[in-house]
């Protein structure tokens, strides 16, 4: 059973941009692409924990602002020669609102958070 939490209106996140969400176990980055897709990822690059929400969004990837690692928004995998992965969480848009699955909070309390 999915239990979707209404986070915020889609327009509060700029196209090709991201905003950060605080949780009791660290921050999540919510991305919006040029096509109005949304993705939720751990807000910490697998390299040196750079805040991915501050990166440049292109296609369905984000480039970390610290050392230019490119992370896939769909899989959380580092692209190209870099290796690493950040946790991704289900996210979707409905009636102009960004929704996250409450299960992501549960996943995080179980130690799903990247160190």
């Amino acid at each position, binding site marked *: 059973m999915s239990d979707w*939490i209404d*986070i*915020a209106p889609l327009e*509060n*996140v*700029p*196209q*090709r*941009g991201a*905003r*950060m*969400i*605080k*949780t*009791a176990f660290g*921050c999540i980055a*919510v991305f919006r692409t*040029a*096509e*109005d*897709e949304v*993705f939720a990822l751990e807000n910490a690059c697998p390299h*040196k*924990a*750079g*805040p991915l929400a*501050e*990166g*440049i*969004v*292109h*296609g*369905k*990837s984000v*480039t970390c*602002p*610290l050392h*230019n690692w*490119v992370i896939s928004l*769909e899989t959380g995998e580092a692209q190209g020669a870099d290796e690493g992965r950040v946790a991704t969480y289900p996210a979707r*848009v409905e009636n102009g609102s*960004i929704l996250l699955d*409450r299960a992501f*909070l*549960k996943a*995080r*309390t179980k130690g799903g958070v990247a160190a």
Partner: protein
Amino acid sequence: MRQKLIVIGAGMATGRMLEALVEAEADYDITLINGEPRGNYNRIMLSPVLSGEKAYAEIVTHDDEWYKLYKIKTRFGCFVQNIDREKRTVTTDAGEVLPYDKLVFGTGSNPFVIPLPGHDLAGVIAYRDLEDTQRMMDLGPAHKCVVIGGGLLGLEAAAGMAARGVDVTVVHIMGHLMERQLDEAAGYLLRRALVDKGIAVKCTANSKEILGENGRVKALLLDDGTELPCDLLVMAVGIRPNVKLAQDSGLAVGKGIHVDDQMITSDADVLAVGECVEHDGAIFGLVAPLYDQAKVAAQTLMGQQAQFVQKEISTKLKVTGCDLFSAGDFADGEGREDIVFRDPGRGVYRRLVIADNIVKGAVMYGDTADSNWFFGLIRDKTDISDMRDTLIFGPAYQGGTPLDPLAAVAALPRDAEICGCNGICKGQIEEAIAAGATDLGAVRLTTKASGSCGTCTGLVEQVLAVTLGDEFVMPAAAVICGCTDMTHEDVRRMIKSQRLMSMPAVWQECGWKTSCGCHVCRPALNFYLLADWPLEYQDDPQSRFINERKHANIQKDGTFSVVPRMWGGITTPDELRAIADAADKYAVPTVKVTGGQRIDLLGVKGEDLPDIWADLNAAGMVSGHAYSKGLRTVKTCVGTDHCRFGTQDSTGLGIKLEKELWGSWTPHKLKLGVSGCPRNCAEATCKDIGVICVDSGYQVSIGGAAGMDVRETELMVQVATEDEAIDVIKAVTQLYRENAKYLDRIYKWMGKVGLDWIKERVETEGPALVERFELSQSIYRKDPWADHVQTKADRYRPLANLSLEAAE
């Protein structure tokens, strides 16, 4: 006894349903009621009527003869007053009471009218029916019309009126036209085609008020203060299902009248079809599903089994000369990939969105000949894995060669300027090649193309390659990134010579291979566009590195550093107190004095930025741009004010320079220094631009650096007065902005073009360069901190705080 059927509304859906009924000789005694004083006509053909390509008579689907032939009773220009579903009667506004056994709603939709002040003035209309069309046709040439809405209907209205000689402006709230059907790139091509037809297009434009005079519309006022005079204002911003009558009759209504798969409403004897219905959460505005509904409704009425199924729909714009097609879903959803094809020469753009080897959506512009084939792939969910490599080229494509990276240059017209310094066009280079100049050196010798600053070298080589084919071997050039085969220099020349003023324009005309660039090319393009088109191009924060997007320097832990500007390195006790207070208030862990004579507050949380800026603003301080590829600092010594060796007021000149140059964006960071005498205490000779004051005036030198490379500046010019020094520095800064590659500091750029070339240009074009610099500064010489505090402080805070939210 024959059953009685009443149909309310003579639209496209009910028209098709009536045809199906009479064709099958259904056993009904039919009455058709319509509010418009006429019967069924092809509403989607109103646009060709407006543009003069068709006459009204040609779009009538059913005339009086037809109704007579099939014994359909008509009540035209007549409205339904109320419906009594218990007694099963309909009462018209003429007082007539008509009994029914079955009732069909085809009440269509109402145009949505934005409740702007003045929307009820005479001359403000929607675009819905023949009356609206007639009023547009009556306007006559040389009148002005504003169309609000850059969607399908608005653009058809605009094109139709433009074809009749009306001066039309389209005002659209979104960033590109038809954003629901098209992506940015196709939106750009469409806009270009409409502008070529003489239609003015304003995107990202918010309407504020409709201004009138003596009760008639006079102009549209936008919220940026622009006034667009007009004699007629057409609102084409969307439609809403017309559900009022259904609601008043007690039928189940949501966005539209609820119907099931058989088109039956919440009352078993009442059906609904067309734009007024809501089926499975969806409402309908395009004609294909309406025809399907009409067929199903007819079968249901005849007691046959039928089911309405929602299908993929496609859109084509009915504007002559704008060939575009959009189908399926090219947004939303995970696991999707793009295939993009651009042919700048023919103005062709194609994009397919693929998921799980199935085409989900397609956008095509310029050449839509294959659109039905692609639409078939979407509708049939065809597995395309076997033809994926060649899919984008369409059904006729067999095997073949990869895309030609020279296509963009091959497509340039003969009069396209290649070499800006010497004014050499593509045609002249081709002639030189034909006359025997078959390598770069020879072309340079005979035409001078690429012989001055050299930034067009890549383009000249491409012209050689296109003209000579295999006889010319292209030297390997460094392309910007994987999104393009072009170099920075090529793209800069294309932006200037082809007047490309938006990112989608560059992507299309330079054949970008990705849909929206990447973190390498986007910041470069954003700079090139704002440097070359300061008024026309709107800076795109999303294409900037975080430091320039949030106007602070990101640190390794994700916090930021904040550096307020200190003009010429001069501060006051009040400013220092305000900085100290801010450091305390926001618990700033580190306060450091910088090399550029300022104070750096390190470790500020991103969400505190607007607050700390507001505090610093209140003390009169502005952003120091310590984060920008732009003017950083002007370092000064104390000069004649205090120093016993000073020859000029170096501090005063430094402050003046900083006040003139601040806020400007440059290819890389730009640091200045002004020393009051040759002892050079301000270290001016290792800055990008340095001034050494001497008794007889000011020595301006450029190309210093003290970073990975350490360079001493080289003297550009000596001038006698402060004003001359300021002008020369503005001129060389503008020359650098207009010509250098993104992320080249002045010394690198100077290494490519040569100091002599720079000197000559500054000398011969100084005033024009200064003027262009000032034009750009009229936009950019302002404090981004104050702006963000006012307009986007929210963006700095978390989107949501779920810290207290339970997991279950």
